[in-house]
C-alpha cells in the first residue's frame, strides 16, 4: 500500500514537473521535433565562402540527430541569384532561399519566401523555445532577413566591412595605428606605403556586385552621399556623393594597377601576399587572411573598423539570411525551418565562429575566450553604425546594380567624369524606378 502511495506521489510529481518543463519549453528537443520529417531532403544553395564551409563541417551532427538530409548546391556568388530566380520561377527543387540583403525585396515581393511567423504558426511544434530572435543584432536581422517590417529569413552568413591592415608594414613606415579617417588613409598612409611594387590600399572594384557594393557604395555613405534622395530621385550628383566618388578617383593612385579587375579573391590575395598594406573587406574573409596556409602575413594581420568619412563611419554592410521557400511542400518547409533554426541558433554560434563563420548572435560576442578573433570588436562596432540601405534593397536592385557596375567602372577608368557617370547612372536608375511604378504612386517608396 505504502509502495503504491509512493508510486502515485512520484507519478504526480513527475507529471507536475513534466507539465512545467513542457510549458517552459525545457523538454523541446531537435530530435523529437524533427521526428515527423525524418528522411526529408532539403535543397539549398551555398556559396563558396568560409561561412558555408563552416556550417557544412557541422552538418553531420544535424543530419544524424534529425534524419533530415541537406542537399547543398554550391555556386559562386555571381551565379547564386540567377540560379535561385530560375529555380523559383520554374517551381524547382529549392526548399531554402539564400538571400543577400539586396535580394530580399525581390524574393519577398514575388512571394518566393515565407514569413517566419507563418512557418512558426503552421508548425508550432518545431519552434525552438530558445530561438531568442532578439539575440540577433537588430540591424542585421532587419537588413538581411526583413522586408517591410516582416521577418522572412534568419541572418546566416553575416558581413560588415572592416579594415584589414598589415601591422608589420605599417610599423615599418612608422605607423602604430591604422588610419582613423578616409582622408588620413589617402593623404598620410597612401604616399608612405606605396612604392617598389607595394601599395597602400586596394579597393575591390571588378565589374559585378563588387563594383556597386564594395567600391561605389563604400565611397558614397561616409561622405554623406547616397543612391537616392527622400523622393526616390537620384542623389548621385549631390555635393556629398560627388565628394565620395572623386575621393575614390584620387585614392586610386595608391592602389594596384588594374584595380577594376580586382574581385574579392584578388584583393584578399594581394593583401595575403603582402603586396597591399590595407584593404576594406568583409568580415567573412578573416579566416582566409589569418591562416598561414593561405596568407604570408597571417601573423601581422590586424583588424579595425572602416575609416570614418565626413559623415561618420558608415561601413559597408552585407550578408545573407536563410528563409523557407514557398515552393517547398509541407514536410520540406518544416525540415527547412529546422535547419535554418539550427544553423543560426545561439547554441551553435560559438562553433560556427570557431570554424570560420560569422554569426549574428549578440550573445556569442559576449563570451570569454574570443581574443583570437581579432575582428570581433570592430565587427560589433560596425554593426552599431551600419546603414541598412547601404545598397537599396528593393526588387529593382538587380537592374540598378548592372547600371552602377557599368558606369562606376567607366568612372574609375576615366572614360567619363564622376559627374557624367553619376548623371548617366541617375537617369537610367530613375527610368527603372519609373517603370516599376514608384513615381506614379503605384508602388510605395520602399525605403
Amino acid at each position, binding site marked *: 500500500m505504502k509502495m503504491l502511495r509512493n508510486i502515485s506521489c512520484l507519478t504526480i510529481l513527475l507529471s507536475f514537473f513534466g507539465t512545467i518543463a513542457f510549458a517552459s519549453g525545457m523538454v523541446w528537443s531537435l530530435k523529437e521535433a524533427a521526428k515527423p520529417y525524418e528522411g526529408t531532403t532539403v535543397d539549398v544553395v551555398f556559396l563558396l565562402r568560409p561561412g558555408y564551409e563552416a556550417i557544412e563541417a557541422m552538418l553531420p551532427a544535424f543530419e544524424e540527430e534529425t534524419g533530415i538530409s541537406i542537399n547543398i548546391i554550391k555556386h559562386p556568388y555571381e551565379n547564386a*541569384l540567377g540560379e535561385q530566380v530560375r529555380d523559383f*520561377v520554374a517551381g524547382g527543387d529549392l526548399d531554402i532561399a539564400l538571400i543577400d540583403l539586396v535580394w530580399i525585396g525581390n524574393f519577398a515581393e514575388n512571394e518566393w519566401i515565407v514569413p517566419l511567423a507563418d512557418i512558426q504558426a503552421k508548425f508550432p511544434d518545431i519552434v525552438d523555445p530558445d530561438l531568442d530572435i532578439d539575440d540577433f543584432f537588430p540591424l542585421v536581422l532587419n537588413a538581411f532577413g526583413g522586408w517591410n517590417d516582416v521577418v522572412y529569413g534568419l541572418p546566416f552568413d553575416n558581413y560588415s566591412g572592416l579594415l584589414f591592415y598589415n601591422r608589420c608594414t605599417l610599423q615599418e613606415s612608422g605607423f602604430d595605428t591604422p588610419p582613423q579617417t578616409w582622408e588620413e588613409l589617402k593623404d598620410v598612409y597612401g604616399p608612405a606605403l606605396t612604392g617598389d611594387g607595394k601599395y597602400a590600399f586596394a579597393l575591390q572594384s571588378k565589374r559585378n556586385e563588387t563594383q556597386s557594393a564594395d567600391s561605389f557604395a563604400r565611397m558614397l555613405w561616409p561622405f554623406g552621399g547616397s543612391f537616392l534622395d527622400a523622393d526616390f530621385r537620384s542623389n548621385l550628383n549631390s555635393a556629398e556623393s560627388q565628394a565620395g566618388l572623386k575621393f575614390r578617383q584620387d585614392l586610386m593612385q595608391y592602389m594596384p594597377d588594374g584595380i577594376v579587375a580586382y574581385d574579392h579573391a584578388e584583393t584578399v590575395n594581394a593583401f595575403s601576399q603582402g603586396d597591399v598594406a590595407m584593404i576594406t573587406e568583409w568580415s567573412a574573409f578573416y579566416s582566409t587572411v589569418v591562416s598561414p596556409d593561405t596568407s604570408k602575413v597571417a601573423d601581422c594581420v590586424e583588424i579595425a573598423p572602416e575609416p570614418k568619412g565626413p559623415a561618420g563611419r558608415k561601413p559597408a554592410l552585407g550578408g545573407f539570411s536563410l528563409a523557407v521557400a514557398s515552393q517547398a511542400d509541407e514536410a520540406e518547409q518544416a525540415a527547412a525551418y529546422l535547419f535554418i533554426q539550427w544553423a543560426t541558433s545561439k547554441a551553435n554560434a560559438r562553433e560556427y565562429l570557431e570554424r570560420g563563420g560569422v554569426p549574428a548572435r549578440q550573445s556569442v560576442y559576449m563570451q570569454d575566450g574570443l581574443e583570437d578573433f581579432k575582428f570581433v570588436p570592430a565587427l560589433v562596432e560596425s554593426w552599431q553604425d551600419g546603414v541598412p540601405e547601404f545598397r537599396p534593397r528593393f526588387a529593382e536592385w538587380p537592374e540598378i546594380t548592372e547600371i552602377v557596375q557599368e558606369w562606376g567602372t567607366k568612372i574609375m577608368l576615366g572614360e567619363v567624369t564622376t559627374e557624367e557617370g553619376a548623371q548617366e547612372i541617375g537617369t537610367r536608375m530613375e527610368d527603372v524606378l519609373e517603370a516599376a511604378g514608384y513615381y506614379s504612386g503605384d508602388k510605395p517608396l520602399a525605403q
Partner: protein
Amino acid sequence: MYRQVPRKTIFTFIGPAVIGLAMVGIAPLLYAVWTSLHFYNLTKLKRVEFIGLENYWKVLTDEVFWQAMGRTFFLLGTALPLQIALGLIIALVLHQPGLTMLKTLGRLSLVLPMATTYAVVGLLGQVMFNQKFGVVNQLLGGANINWIGDPNNAFFMIIFWDVWQWTPFVALVLLAGLTMVPIEIEEAARLETKSNWILLRFVQLPFLVPGLVAVLILRTADTLKLFDMVFTLTRGGPGSSTEFISLMIQRVGFRGFDQGLASAQAIILLIITIVLAQLYIRVFYKEV
C-alpha cells in the same frame, strides 16, 4: 527503275527528326519571338504584358547595344583576317611534300586548341596573363603589363586567344581545300611559273573558296555568339571594353532578368547573322 515511295514511309523516317528539331530549335525560337514582344522580366512575372515592338525599338535606339555590336565586329575584323592569314600559311606548309611524320604531328597538334573548352581557355588566360604571376609577363622578360585590368590590353588578350584557338580550324579547312587541287594541274602550273603567289592565286585559291566561305560563315557566327571564354576571362570588363554582344544579351537576360529585351536583342543578332551569311555566299560564290 524508281518506285514511288509512299508518303507514310517518308513521314515515318523523317518525321521523328523533324519533330525533334522543331522541339529543340524552332520552339525556343518561337518562344523567344513571343517574349520579345512582351514585357517579360523573370522577377516581375505578375506584370507580363504585350508591348508590341517596344523592346525592338529600345534595342535599336540603345547606344550600349550598338557599342557592343561595334566591339564584336571589331573583334571579327581583327581576329578573322589573322586567322585566315595564319591558317593559310600553316595549310601551305603542311601541304608541302615530304616530312610526313612531322606533318602528321603538326596536324594532330592543330586539333588541341580546338578541343579545349572555351571556358577553360578563359581560365587559362586568367592565370597566364596575370600581371604579377603570369607566364606571359615572365616570358616578356619580367614585364609589368597589366593585361586584364587595362581596356586595350584586355581586348588584345581576347583577340590573342581567339586567334590561338581558331587558327588551327581555318588551317585544317584550307588544308582540306588544298588536297582537292588535282596534282596534275598543280604540277602543270609549276612548270609554267616559279611564283608561289601565282600558283596560289590562280590554281589553288579557286579550290579554297568553298572552304573559305564556310570559314567566314562559321567564324562570323561563332564570333557573334562568343561568350564562354570572355565571360571567364574578363566578364566583359574592365568597364565595357570586352562586352561583346552575346555577353550583353546574357547580362540583360540573366543578370537583369529582362528576358523580353534580351530576346529582342537575340532576334536582331540572329537576323544580322543570317544576312551576313547570305552576303558571304552571294559575294564569294559569284567570284568563283
